[in-house]
């Protein structure tokens, strides 16, 4: 799928632009945002397999974060939908294997399989939207520093930062090699025979290794000691960051243990 990975890498570069925003959400400490996203995903995935309506209140989280951060809603939805094909593929087995009727509305019968399928789709979109919003509202180097402060080994955090920076470079290189291949092969076909493929990839690999060695040497000569630092250190403010965790954590707990849609139904219908 060369085209989709091209697009993915373009998205990755664009995300770094979005993440530079200055909304209240962007300004939160990355640790607070990471913790809240993990709580969100854990809460969403903790329901039983047939749960649909009680997952609904969780939509408040992506909606509120999107609204407050000023990130385009279309961007969030589009990126969240990237996950759809795989989930659809696996989820669609549920209606096939679970045909027990669970719910009747008049003459309309809903089987357990369709309910659990709907539940899977909702979980997927909520869980993915959490991660998507995290990277759209947080600079990647801040996110990495936050991870390090939370105890992730430094060598891994540095690795993440190098990887993030190298992806754009090497993707550009791969694209140039493909273009060169297309121009010389006479057909606009990206399928390459294995005998051409191995030298192409091997050459790219050797060039990448040489480049990394050069870059590493020049970094060492400028005093690099294995740690990537930020000009502005992170500061966790209990008034904003702490509150952010408390409010959302409390909300997720409430959604988990109180049936909000039902309460809302009673409130509206007066039953």
């Amino acid at each position, binding site marked *: 799928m060369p085209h989709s990975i091209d697009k993915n890498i373009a998205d990755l570069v664009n995300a770094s632009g979005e993440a530079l925003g200055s909304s209240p959400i962007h300004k939160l400490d990355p640790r607070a945002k990471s913790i809240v996203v993990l709580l969100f995903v854990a809460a969403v995935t903790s329901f039983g397999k047939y749960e649909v309506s009680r997952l609904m209140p969780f939509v408040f989280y992506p909606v509120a974060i999107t609204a407050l951060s000023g990130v385009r809603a279309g961007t969030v939805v589009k990126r969240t939908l990237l996950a759809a094909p795989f*989930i659809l593929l696996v989820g669609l087995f549920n209606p096939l294997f679970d045909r027990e009727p669970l719910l009747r509305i008049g003459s309309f019968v809903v089987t357990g399989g369709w309910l659990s399928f709907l*539940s899977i789709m909702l979980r997927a979109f909520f869980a993915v939207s959490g991660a998507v919003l995290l990277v759209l509202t947080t600079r990647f180097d801040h996110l990495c520093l936050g991870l390090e402060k939370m105890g992730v080994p430094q060598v891994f955090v540095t690795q993440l930062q190098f990887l993030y920076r190298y992806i754009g470079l090497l993707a550009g290189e791969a694209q140039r090699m493909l273009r060169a291949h297309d121009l010389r092969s006479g057909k606009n076909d990206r399928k390459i025979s294995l005998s051409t493929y191995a030298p192409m990839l091997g050459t790219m690999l050797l060039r990448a290794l040489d480049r990394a060695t050069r870059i590493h040497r020049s970094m060492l000569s400028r005093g690099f000691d294995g740690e990537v630092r930020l000009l502005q250190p992170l500061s966790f403010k209990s008034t904003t960051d702490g509150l952010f965790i408390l409010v959302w954590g409390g909300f997720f707990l409430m959604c988990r243990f109180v049936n909000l849609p039902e309460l809302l139904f009673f409130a509206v219908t007066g039953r």
Partner: protein
Amino acid sequence: MADALISPAVGGAMWIATAGLAAYSAKKLRDNPDDGRVPLMGVLGAFVFAAQMINFSIPVTGSSGHLGGGMILAILLGPHAAFLTLASVLVVQALFFADGGLLALGCNIFNMGFYTCFFAYPFIYKKLVGDTPSRRTIFIAATLSSVLGLQLGAFSVVLQTLASGISELPFGTFVLLMQPIHLAIGIIEGLVTGAVVLFVWKARPEVLETAAGTPPAHAFSLKPVLAGLAAAAIITGGMLSWFASTYPDGLEWSIAKTSGSEELAAPEATVHSTLAFIQEKTAFLPDYGFKPGSREEPAESTAEASEPDTWPNLDAGTSVSGLIGGALTLLLAGVIGVLLRRSSAARR
């Protein structure tokens, strides 16, 4: 593996197992600061991404494939650096490409990294290639180790999905789907890995030698591998049993369903009382009842027969109040979103 298909117990357990492996690998690298491979980890991670942009045609089938990357990382970097590099690739994929998800990240890193880096590489590839690589041994070793790593990883996916109890796929069907697909992927992956490694070995053998600066094959012992697997099993088992007795959710239901065992008898008591309570609460619209089995045929409701029957009702909670309430919730969320956006735009 995706967030939507796993339970927090399974996801959390695999997170712990993966975090342990990552900490162990990071410690190994830290203990050896002069290691020439560490500066190459970043670029090789990016290489795995870039390599996925270039596809080659698979003869006869008309389809195309690309390098997956786990095995080549292990060959070039050794197990510890390769595990961390693969983990970083999966983190970026989960965050930016909506691939997998955050809860499933532990599973994904374990499934793709552990078996390749800590099992297939040291025990298959290293042993077969040894200190004297040749064209034949590189190809055979790369193919065998890729196949084995992917088979074990795919089987792990099946086990984790089954333990989570979200997907309806029966064990046998899922295994029959996953293993042959991954056998094909493994063979292709092995051939490509072998071809690229061979090219590098011919053009610049010293690159592989720096990489092969890892201790020779016999220095690897099976102990850490077994310890890692045992730890993962114990943590998973522990978390599953803890969750099973705390939350009567889909998890137990699937265990009861697949094993048919009575081991979960204790929570059943609470399940039934909760169920009765919920049925009472939802009885305000009797016409839109749950499935007839549980209500109209009470004669059949022996403990064993009613267990799988009544379970879904508890979780369904999809009385009409749920349907309409859920729709109202969505509507409310939309309205609040628009209001929040307006107020935050006004402030700026």
